[in-house]
């Protein structure tokens, strides 16, 4: 038994090292390229410089405030979008003809990249926060509602019949049957739209930063590019990626773990 456990631990360690290896190689090459002058430091600062800048900027510089600003706009945008999505989904459930109409519109709109709408959004909303929220909404609502409507279509009839059989009230049906049954679709939808929203938001901040608006991680990256401070640019990029990783680990991984335990999501 102990030998088997040791073998399993050894296998885990080997897998971990195999996954770590590419990162170690990249880090080593990066450090060499910068320190040995293969690439000018202006373009590629060393990792140690970037790390130092990142921590300094997070705790004493403007990076932290720009991060919070981006996150607040994202949260506000997502909250609005979830309410809008819920209204659309309820309307689709209630009115079948609206559902067909909406699905056609959503499929069409979903294929338009946020950045393609940027000129229109600037015309309609200016270059402030409301424009960014409008872009985030475009990234979220179409995709998310399609995911949920598809999920509702494939909801197992057997759960619905169980609810009918015991005369379950609407509130209990939604809370205890439909939401848990739709959780794989809700999670998959949120996972996709959260990434899209985050990318659109940063993209808009970069673009708006270039034409005068201030604030957010995108703006931070852009302004430091103007100033030629590539260590700060990389710090901003690392934070953008880190937020994605943290959200995935803290929110989605936990939900997915639960769904795997229930068997509603496969490995």
């Amino acid at each position, binding site marked *: 038994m102990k030998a088997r456990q040791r073998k399993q631990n050894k296998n885990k360690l080997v897998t971990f090292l195999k996954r770590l290896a590419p990162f170690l190689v990249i880090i080593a090459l990066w450090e060499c390229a910068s320190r040995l002058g293969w690439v000018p430091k202006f373009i590629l600062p060393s990792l140690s410089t970037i790390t130092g800048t990142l921590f300094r900027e997070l705790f004493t510089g403007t990076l932290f405030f720009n991060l919070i600003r981006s996150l607040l706009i994202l949260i506000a945008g997502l909250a609005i979008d979830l309410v809008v999505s819920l209204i659309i989904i309820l309307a689709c459930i209630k009115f079948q003809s609206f559902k067909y109409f909406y699905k056609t519109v959503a499929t069409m709109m979903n294929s338009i990249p946020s950045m393609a709408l940027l000129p229109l959004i600037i015309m309609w909303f200016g270059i402030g926060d409301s424009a960014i929220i409008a872009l985030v909404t475009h990234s979220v609502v179409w995709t998310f509602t399609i995911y949920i409507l598809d999920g509702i279509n494939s909801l197992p009839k*057997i759960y619905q019949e*169980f609810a*009918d*059989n015991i005369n379950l*009230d609407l509130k209990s049906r939604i809370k*205890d049957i439909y939401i848990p*049954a739709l959780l794989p679709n809700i999670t998959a939808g949120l996972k996709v739209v959260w990434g899209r929203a985050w990318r659109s938001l940063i993209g808009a901040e970069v673009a708006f930063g270039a034409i005068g608006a201030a604030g957010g991680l995108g703006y931070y990256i852009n302004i430091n590019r103007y100033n030629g401070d590539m260590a700060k640019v990389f710090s901003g990029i690392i934070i953008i990626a880190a937020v994605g990783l943290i959200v995935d680990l803290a929110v989605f991984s936990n939900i997915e773990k*639960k769904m795997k335990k229930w068997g*509603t999501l496969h490995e």
Partner: protein
Amino acid sequence: MSKAVFEAIDICKSFDERKILKDVTFSLHKSEIMAIVGKSGCGKTTLLRILANLELPDSGELLFDGQPQKNPTPNIIFIQQDYNQLLPWKSVINNVAYPAIATKKYSKEDAFRRAKELLEKMDLAEFVDYYPRELSGGMKQRVAIARALIMEPKILLLDEPFGAVDRESREKVYGIIKKLCNEYGTAVLLVTHNLQEAKNVAKKIIYFEANTVKIITSAEFNKIIGV
């Protein structure tokens, strides 16, 4: 004999011009167990679904306690053939207690106490904290039966609940169902492929044969199956 608790009168159902059920009439009394037997596709499940009000008949009437019954009711619980009818996101005990809590039949505390008792009777006491995916098909069906019994239904509709369960476990659960039927006065309508099982469990049998439905006693059924 006591007054019928449930009556099906002239139930007819067709699918795409194919007549599945033709003038099916029978009545069920308190604590009575009736079996439905017949070949695959003859309409056994359709009949149960109609009786549970999950499907509408083309014509005919259902009476529950002498009153027309047109909507699903927790007094008539349908246990489907599908092993995956439990809610996968709830543990075994939560699955069993849930209908009683959600419909406010019992307080939360009473529902869990009752669920535990039922699971003990079903030999599932050690699996209360498991999730449905961790159980075998037969165990899932026993949980589904416990989940139905917690509602103390007047009628229990069982659609081939133990297709892949070993004989010993099946007989044990039927024993439990019989006992609980007597305890609560629940009447049972059971669809089965197993003719021997139908004969052993039920006193009356709804026998589907060549588009006709006969209500026969188990003695008459013995003659048909040649025992």
